[in-house]
């Protein structure tokens, strides 16, 4: 039988099913929901804490995650795992990744600087929005969605609406 890992890609329906089943396991056995943005809060807090631990103690939002609980916990391990899993999986794949995404180059040119600025701004908005909104596509989209939480569906709807509008503005040239 052909090694499934060597396949170019898997059906989104199979992957979605697998993520759903993975959630059964995380909910039932690990008492956790798949989500990832808290890990970023922890990591940024940890880095700042290296420079000024006092600052972490006196910023309640950081203190909540750094002072009273272990910094490196389940979600940090998930964070590392996702990077590792994707790397492992890509070893079997023949998809090559362009230095700068094609759609970006079409619209913003091939300067590294532009792409870096875009990535920094995009990342900033993602995490700020996620922490304010209470989750990300994993936390709200998958975990909140499968719990049938109203605000999660509102979040995902808002993300799609604004994301679709923004993408059409940014990537005019296809």
């Amino acid at each position: 039988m052909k090694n499934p890992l060597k396949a170019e890609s898997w059906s989104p329906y199979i992957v979605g099913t697998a993520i759903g089943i993975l959630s059964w396991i995380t909910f039932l056995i690990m008492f956790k929901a798949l989500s990832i943005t808290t890990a970023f809060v922890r990591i940024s807090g940890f880095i700042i804490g290296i420079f000024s631990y006092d600052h972490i103690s006196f910023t309640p939002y950081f203190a909540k995650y750094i002072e009273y609980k272990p910094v490196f916990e389940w979600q940090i391990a998930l964070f590392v795992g996702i990077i590792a899993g994707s790397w492992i999986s890509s070893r079997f794949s023949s998809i090559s990744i362009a230095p700068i995404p094609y759609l970006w180059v079409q619209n913003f040119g091939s300067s590294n600087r532009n792409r870096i600025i875009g990535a920094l701004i995009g990342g900033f908005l993602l995490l700020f929005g996620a922490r304010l909104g209470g989750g990300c596509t994993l936390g709200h989209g998958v975990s909140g969605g499968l719990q049938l939480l109203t605000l999660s569906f509102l979040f995902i709807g808002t993300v799609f609406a604004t994301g679709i509008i923004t993408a059409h503005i940014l990537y005019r040239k296809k």
Partner: protein
Amino acid sequence: MLPNLFAHPLILIQGLAAGIILGILFQKARLSQFNVIVGQLLLKDFTVLKVILTAIVVGSIGIYAFIALDLPLQMHDKGGSILSTIIGGSMFGIGMATLGFCPGTCLAAAGHGTRSAWWGIVGMLFGAWAYAETHEFFAKNVLTAWKMETATLQQLFNTSPWTIIIIMTIVSLVIFKLLGRKKATGEQPEE
């Protein structure tokens, strides 16, 4: 005096295992690729929607079956308000289009070899920091505005969760059928 830095090894191993599986799933679904995520937002590639809807349908059937079987389960509800969800979701949507990933898929993209994904991670760390510093303001003014009284869809529509699940499954199947009729637009040969 540093607090205990690491959670119990068993917890870390569970998280790592779940993460590795998720990373493989993302990469194999091509969600680690810029053109797939942005392709969804440009309504040319519906991989993202298919994965999320399927995960929600399958996930909800399992979770609510466990609840019906009285298995010990915790719900994970972040709370928040309608206002915070809309503002946060809007920022997130703009960020997702600009970076070309969401946080989870950005990690997968980094593992897969997208250089800008690492800059995305740096940006995300700054975003997390900025929110931590300004959280007090939002807690007072936004997170309590327009509170959602009904946490779940079944409460909102005053029905059983299974009604919601059945409707959601039917709607998803209809969407999948309609999407099946669209020919997939040619993807770029490389990312």
